[in-house]
């Protein structure tokens, strides 16, 4: 099971729960499983978040694989030259 940690305001959409153990094998699966558990978070995942898998940050990478023992952080989208709004 991957350990999944929500960073920042996303926990307000999960009743304050910040950590999950999920069996997702890809970012897409991870988002689906989180959305099943907490439907309110779904649009925010779609709107743009970054996902750090074992320390490596991915953006807009739904197909990125997640290992069984991976540590995954869901972060606000990393902006850069543009400003992006996140929940």
């Amino acid at each position, binding site marked *: 099971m991957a350990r999944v*940690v929500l*960073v*920042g*305001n996303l926990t*307000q959409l999960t009743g304050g729960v910040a950590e999950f153990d999920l069996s997702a094998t890809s970012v897409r699966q991870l988002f689906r499983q989180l959305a099943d558990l907490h439907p309110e978070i779904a649009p925010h995942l779609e*709107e*743009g978040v970054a996902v*750090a898998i*074992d*320390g*490596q*940050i*991915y*953006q*807009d*990478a739904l197909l*990125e694989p997640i290992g069984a023992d991976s*540590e995954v*952080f869901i*972060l*606000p*989208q*990393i*902006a*850069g*030259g*543009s*400003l*992006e*709004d*996140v*929940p």
Partner: protein
Amino acid sequence: MTMAGNGTNGQQYVGTRTIRPDGADKVTGRARFGADYNLAGQLIGKVLRSPHPHARIVSIDTSKAEALPGVKAVITRDDFADMPSEFIPAGEMMMNYKDVTRNVMAREKALYEGHAVAAVAATSAVIAKKALKLIDVTYDVLPHVIDVVEAMQPGAPILHDDLFTVGVEPKPDRPSNVAKRVEISQGDIDAGFKRADVIVEREFKTAPVHQGYIEPHAVLATVSEDGSAEVWVSTQGHYIVRAHCARLLGMDIGKIRVNAAEIGGGFGGKTVVYLEPLALALSRKAKRPVKMVMSREEVFKASGPTSGAVVKVKMGATKDGKFVAGWAELKYQAGAFQGSPVQPGVMCAYAPYEIEHVKVVGYDVVSNRPKVAAYRAPGAPISEYAVESVVDEIAKKLGIDPIQLRMMNAAHEGTKAAYGPKFGPLGLEETLNSIKKTEHWNTPLRKWQGRGVASGFWFNIGGETCVSLTVNEDGTVSLMAGTPDIGGLRASLAAVAADELGIPYDKVRPIIGDTGSLGFNFLTGGSRSAFSGSMAIVEAAKQIKSELCARAAKLWEMKPDEIEYAGGHVKPKVASEKVTPMSLVDFAKVAGKTGGPIGGVGRINAQGAGPSLGTHLVDLEVDPETGRVTILRYTVAQDAGKALHPAYVEGQFQGGAVQGIGWALNEEYIYGADGKLQNAGFLDYRMPVASDVPKIDAIVVEVANPRHPYGVRGVGETPIVPPLGAIANAMENATGIRFTELPMSPPKVLKALKEKYGAGGAGR
């Protein structure tokens, strides 16, 4: 120090100071920037802007302007469809088009002085300006608010009746200027402070500053009778311009072709649209090309600066110098619409350091100023300035060398970032070591001179990128990228292509393609274009090499796996007398007979952008008679992963340092009590010029990014992060005064010196 060097085909040009492909045109004036484009029959577009910082627009009567001979089109809010409040993808950005459409053309209210209210296209600039005066706008002037703290107060003038603070519980039932509250935390901040032997708490204030690009916004747009359009524009992202304009004007993306002109600076400020949708709307109405160029006054009043902010920082350390707790509260101006860079400010504040207990809270606050746009490492310079100032104070309290203290707490590979995940390889310790070894660090200073050091962090990003390599009939290679070249992209990518294909650098001709020539490219920003572009070039070159090997296999009647591409030649892996290796030039001659044109297209969504950290060292001198600060010496050390083109990398370091000097010492938006900007020009908005700064020494540290084939990290944004803290720390060492408000301009410095030491600093 780890050196990169894992290029896939040897490195003859990568890492060298190759001639810039765009250099000759730029020094001879041949290069065409945004305002250099013209079309036959073009009209000149001008914008009518609100004179009020906050006013309800009761009515707009354009009839007299439309009747003026020479006027071909007038547009107002009625020419733009309203959009619902929802964040939707535009390219790779999330945008709330309810705000975007209101920013490019005011609807119910004018929300800042300079807000566009109407626009005119006429046969000459004189007629267009005359027409603007004939537009009759009736305003209901409303109270305004500029300052971020004042905007947060109960009873402050409310900009948006439908803006309710997000991120607080319970959900508010009244509108507010506070768009959202964000927070990151780890550990137990109270427990962390209990462990601290030393605690420093300070409040800082930074003024809003503009990116200060030399070239104003400029666009030429033409819409044909069949609804297709072409645009030439000064932008950091022509695909983003296309996406925004299509959405705002209800056009198909495929019907808009956008060309990126050469760009005279952007620094984040040219990642959004202002004139572009207006020019297209005017052209669509007038059925003629429309050219629009902002004046400098318009750039200041109507395009996005970065936030002014108030930041509180509280840090705790043990007596042996270990940081144990870091807390901060950030209040950032967003301008007239939500979306300040407070989120990255929150995430970056403590990113350079390994601290167990961290809590950072941020507020995104609207006020009657132009909507902020990105500005180089958006949000990070402000929060890191405050933290770096406090780090310096802790060093003094503990009697520890400031570089040593940073070294003791520096984030490194495996450190859990304050925002969550663990870092991969990082170069902060290497930059600190590099600075400490400089002759600069060890040079003595005189009275009223001070030395400061500060470090800085920025994430960097990758993103969608598409490039092409086409082998021409003579074996030369055309390289096309889809991100505007701002800081040396063409030279960097040409060097990678030459090395990957094993051909001379001058046989690669790089150009920036228009939106119809390549697949989607995210913009030049986030320090991503050389990082992502070079990854895409490697992919495109791989396709060419694979194709050549496949064709050679057929020509030589061998198996493909018996053939390789190396040293610029296709050849058998085991040398054979029957086969003569073929160069790219040889193959180009028979391309048609062996299957047609040869080329490759790299289409990637680049991941694996490694953060870049830097450390700046500055010496300055304060004139106690005038308060003027002179920068005496400046050294930048930053981790580039691998410098594809060292001169351009050094240029980024130097440019960031100079921008930071301006931000720290002089630049600020000055508003009158009437909410109007009083210094909308370079005479009164004091940016550093060449004579204000010494040569900036640049040290390129290379700790390879393992996720990039050459080890590259983005380098463009980090250099703006450390200067504010480094200069404030140098000021404290020069004067004995901790300045907590930027800019540290002569009047403020003089006042502080007089309060502490008497007139002329006599008491020191």
